[in-house]
């Protein structure tokens, strides 16, 4: 919503500067986006008289002018073809800045003749496109009159952002009322007294709505005005509209736009000569269309309020008029429409048809229903004034319903909700100035809301009105303190676990990514999402499914990095994934991927690609950080889904899979255009065992192992596809008491090993808490190990 200061002052008697007004508007909740100081650039320029213009002695196209200005007479060399003796123009003195170029004007000698200042063209002043010559002004302008005044620069312009609840402030009157109520000046009113009618009234108007739909248009007033002349509107009106970004069209149309902006009272004018028969207000019929004033044809439906005559639909109620009955220069007889349309229906129609108009903006927020007749009278008066003619008797269909509300306002609510203490008289004055009818009742107030304030309905609304008039900045801040001196932990154990896991995995070299919760449906299908959860109204296909796994977007990110020559890296995301749309199907999921080389090429390290054991370690580290039982889990081959079937695994706790890790399936890599090795892990934090609340934080005592350990190495030959975990389990079980640790230090297959077999080298640490083990004891355990390995996994000790 834009307005100019002079325009505002037609509603508000005030001496306040534009800065003061802007500051007050913002503090009232009418946020000033910008104050545009139009004309500031023209402050140095003023009207001048060309006393004499003669041929330049040394140049055919130049003239030497004696220019009379408010500061005396200057000699100016001018190249404009229209510079001549006796004209008035706009003078730019030395030292002024020419708006079009930004150059500072200096005294110059042009072909041997001195020049002090300049006569300006419209383009040089950026007030028009005309560059054929200098501006010529009518003779009545006094020398020295500021250029802003003669050029009709309407300003400054204040650009406001009006919140949707303040329907009344979509008119300058409403804005002025708020300012006046806050103590900034006094409100002035337009002349809305009845314009005497002469001649017959206009066409019949009928509201034709089925029962239950009458609210679509409760009131429609039409007034015929005959004998108008619809030329250009006067300069003041054009300037005013232009200043706020509205293009002047013709006097009649400009008047309707003016009333819309001035009073938040949208109007429409029909060319009465083009109307056929009476006017009917009704809902559209399916398949009806309207060619609107914006030149587009709209298909209507049975929910939309239309204005029709015998020819069919001629206007969309509250949104836009139709082309067939629009006013032109030839119009001599108009039907002025002043109506009320249902806000919701107007909003819906506008949305469906995609029409944004100044009328819709106001109708859908709600007009002042009691302002139909005053608005009609004011508009009639303006039409008669600017276009001539005479107005017939208004035709009124329907009636206004009373929309005022009664609120019993308990004065204690203001301090209770805001901390503001105001005396009763101040409160009454504030509310009266806003248009409330205020009656004392007991120790409180009985309020009747103004007809233009649909947004005020509760005590809290009244509190807001008072608080904003008083000024939010005058509310003293009160610190929010805790009741206890030492605060308690604010994170739940899940939240804490998430925070720890995040930092633990970042510490292992992963960069945290935050990617969309959406993904492509085809990507979703790669991961646990056989039937992805789709958005009904996605922005695009790439973001049309809720992700069933965080891996898809990480792979896409890896591919983007790869394309930017980031050939290796590690990224993770800990964020929701969506197994379904229902409650509990959103899971807090951690996924990480590593791609490319395991580390940068280095003089000391053999280069290798990332592999499944990198991410196995990552997944186990996550379990560890999460306080999970990293030492109680089992590893099973093959994670399925997006993983390489032979190079992936699951981490299980009992029967339950709690994490997956492995190489990404080559087919999926191809789909993501990833031409490198990618390994990944993923898990849902909800799957990890809950950390039970402990009463004691004490750790168990440290175990002492005072007797020396003995390490024995074994090399077993086993089937190539035997999971080593099986061998380890067998070995550990051989003597649960004395075997403390089993490490695998070599896995070998190839030369020297029979095909289909592999050699596993183990180091077993034996230790007792009670004594130093004897050679015999060690030998016995060793034999048991060999026996157990042979028995359970057919392992053969290598010679």
């Amino acid at each position: 919503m834009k307005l100019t200061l002079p325009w505002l002052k037609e509603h508000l008697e005030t001496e306040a500067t534009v800065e003061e007004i802007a500051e007050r508007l913002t503090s009232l909740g009418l946020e000033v986006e910008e104050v545009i100081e139009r004309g500031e650039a023209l402050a140095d320029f003023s009207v001048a008289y060309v006393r004499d213009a003669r041929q330049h002695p040394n140049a055919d196209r130049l003239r030497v002018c004696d220019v009379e200005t408010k500061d005396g007479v200057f000699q100016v060399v001018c190249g404009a073809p229209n510079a001549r003796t006796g004209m008035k123009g706009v003078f730019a003195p030395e030292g002024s800045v020419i708006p079009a170029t930004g150059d500072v004007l200096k005294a110059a000698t042009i072909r041997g003749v001195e020049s002090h200042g300049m006569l300006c063209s419209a383009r040089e002043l950026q007030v028009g496109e005309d560059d054929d010559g200098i501006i010529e002004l009518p003779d009545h302008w006094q020398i020295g009159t500021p250029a802003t005044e003669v050029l009709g620069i309407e300003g400054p312009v204040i650009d406001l952002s009006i919140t949707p609840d303040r329907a009344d402030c979509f008119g300058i009157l409403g804005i002025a009322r708020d300012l006046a109520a806050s103590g900034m000046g006094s409100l002035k009113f337009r002349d809305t007294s009845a314009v005497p009618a002469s001649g017959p009234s206009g066409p019949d108007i009928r509201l034709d709505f089925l029962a239950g739909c009458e609210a679509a248009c409760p009131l429609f007033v039409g007034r015929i005005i005959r004998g108008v002349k619809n030329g250009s509107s006067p300069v003041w009106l054009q300037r005013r509209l232009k200043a706020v970004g509205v293009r002047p069209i013709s006097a009649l149309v400009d008047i309707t736009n003016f009333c819309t902006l001035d009073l938040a009272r949208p109007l429409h004018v029909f060319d009465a000569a083009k109307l056929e028969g009476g006017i009917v207000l009704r809902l559209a019929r399916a398949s009806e269309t309207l060619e609107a004033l914006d030149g587009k044809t709209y298909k209507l439906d049975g929910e939309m309020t239309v204005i029709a005559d015998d020819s069919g639909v001629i206007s969309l109620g509250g949104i836009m008029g139709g082309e067939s009955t629009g006013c032109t220069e030839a119009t001599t007889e108009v039907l002025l429409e002043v109506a009320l349309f249902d806000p919701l229906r107007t909003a819906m129609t506008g949305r469906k048809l995609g029409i944004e108009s100044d009328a819709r903006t106001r109708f859908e927020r709600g007009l002042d229903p009691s302002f139909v007749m005053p608005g009609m009278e004011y508009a009639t008066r303006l039409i008669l004034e600017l276009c001539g003619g005479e107005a017939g008797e208004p035709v009124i269909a329907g009636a206004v319903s009373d929309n005022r509300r009664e609120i019993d306002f308990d004065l204690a609510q203001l301090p209770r909700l805001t901390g503001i203490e105001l005396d009763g008289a101040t409160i009454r004055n504030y509310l009266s100035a806003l248009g409330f009818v205020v009656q004392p009742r007991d120790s409180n107030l009985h309020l009747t809301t103004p007809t233009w304030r649909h947004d005020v309905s509760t005590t809290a609304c009244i509190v807001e009105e008072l608080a904003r008039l008083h000024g939010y900045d005058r509310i003293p801040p009160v610190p929010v303190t805790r009741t206890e001196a030492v605060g308690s932990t604010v994170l739940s154990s899940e939240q804490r676990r998430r925070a720890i896991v995040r930092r633990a995995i970042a510490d292992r070299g992963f960069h945290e990514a935050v990617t969309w919760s959406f993904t492509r449906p085809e990507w979703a299908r790669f991961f646990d999402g056989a039937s992805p959860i789709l958005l009904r109204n996605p922005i695009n296909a790439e973001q049309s499914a809720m992700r069933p796994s965080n891996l898809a977007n990480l792979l896409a990110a890896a591919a983007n990095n790869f394309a930017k020559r980031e050939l290796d890296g590690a990224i993770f995301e800990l964020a929701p994934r969506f197994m379904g749309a229902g409650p509990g199907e959103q899971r807090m999921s951690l996924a990480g991927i590593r791609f490319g080389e395991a580390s940068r090429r280095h003089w000391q390290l053999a280069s290798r690609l990332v592999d499944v054991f990198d991410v196995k370690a990552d997944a186990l580290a996550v379990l560890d950080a999460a306080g999970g039982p990293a030492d109680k889990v089992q590893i099973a081959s093959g994670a399925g889904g997006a993983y390489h079937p032979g190079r992936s695994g699951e981490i299980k706790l009992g029967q339950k899979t709690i994490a997956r890790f492995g190489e990404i399936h080559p087919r999926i890599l191809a789909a993501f255009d990833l031409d490198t090795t990618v390994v990944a892990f993923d898990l849902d934090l909800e799957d990890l065992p809950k950390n039970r609340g402990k009463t004691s934080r004490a750790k168990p005592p440290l175990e002492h192992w005072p007797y020396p350990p003995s390490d024995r190495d074994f090399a077993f030959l086993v089937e190539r596809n035997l999971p080593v975990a099986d061998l380890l389990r067998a070995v550990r079980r051989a003597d649960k008491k004395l075997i403390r640790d089993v490490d695998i230090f070599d896995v070998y297959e190839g030369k020297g090993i029979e095909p289909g077999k592999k050699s596993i080298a183990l180091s077993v640490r034996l230790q007792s808490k009670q004594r130093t083990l004897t050679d015999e004891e060690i030998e016995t355990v060793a034999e048991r190990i060999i026996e157990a390995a042979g028995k359970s996994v057919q392992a053969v000790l290598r010679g």
Partner: protein
Amino acid sequence: MIDQLDTLRTEIKARIDEAPNLRALETVRVTALGRKGRITELVKSLGQLPSEERPRAGQAFNALKNDIEGMIDGRKAQLADRELGQRLDEEWVDVTLPARPSSQGSIHPVTQVTEEIIAIFAEMGFAVAEGPDIEDDYHNFEALNLPPEHPARQMHDTFYLEAEHNGVPLLLRTHTSPVQIRTMKMQPPPYRIIAPGRTYRRDSDMTHTPMFHQVEGLMIDRRTHMGHLKGCLIDFVRAFFERDDIPVRFRPSYFPFTEPSAEMDIGCKRGGGELIVGGGSDWLEILGCGMVHPKVLEAVDLDPSEWQGFAFGMGIDRAAMLKYGIPDLRTFFEGDLAWSRHYGFAPLDIPSIHGGLSR
């Protein structure tokens, strides 16, 4: 005899001095002092001396023996030093070569800033609440005083899902405010919570992304008013931006779920494509807030004449951009490694009030 000893001393000393290394020196020692060594042999001949000469000779022998041992020890130390010196020379490495790499990852600014916000509000007694990203109309709109045809719904550009739940249409929450409703329905008052999380609006351009992060705040008890709202949020922004001199401004605004409603601006300086928080003559909107609307309280069965308090909502991504000078919102969601290395945070930079929010 004594002469003989002197000769021997001279001879052995020469050999000790000439010993090129520890092994040769050991040979010299064995030759001199070993079981069959020359001195040992000579000692054996001591018995043949007349008894009156024996003590003197014995003393001379001991002196010789001690001398030799001393000389050997001295030479030994000398040789050991030299050998160590040689070893050290040989052990030289070029320490200008690069060290073994260790890869450190990073924490996303959204996470970091969220934790900073949590740390600040924890000081004021706020706990962290959460709710689902997929919501229904009731929690996202209706209970928040946004009935179906409310014009403000349009400002939300809601994403809807194809799926329904028990016949109820589902949507992606357009703000974190539904967490207010869920919190108040789940537990009795009073409330002090913040709820950070993902939010979604159907909007995508230079400064909007279809997914972004918000943090909701809710404080309800029997006495909290707008003065507390101001105090809380002023303390918050000054703590968050780690500047005590940040100008703040509250101005009336409109949200369906608060009444009175306000927006909070902070002072900033614009220029040269940069925006500096604090100082300057410009204002920057940072969050929306207000006293919880009586209809919202009624929706969760709280009596508005008994319970009262404020709520606020702030964009986390934008707060991160402002505080850390990150220019483009869209880059937050790209997973770009160069961006992460530059704008990310070290894993051990855990924000806290006692230790500082940021380095």
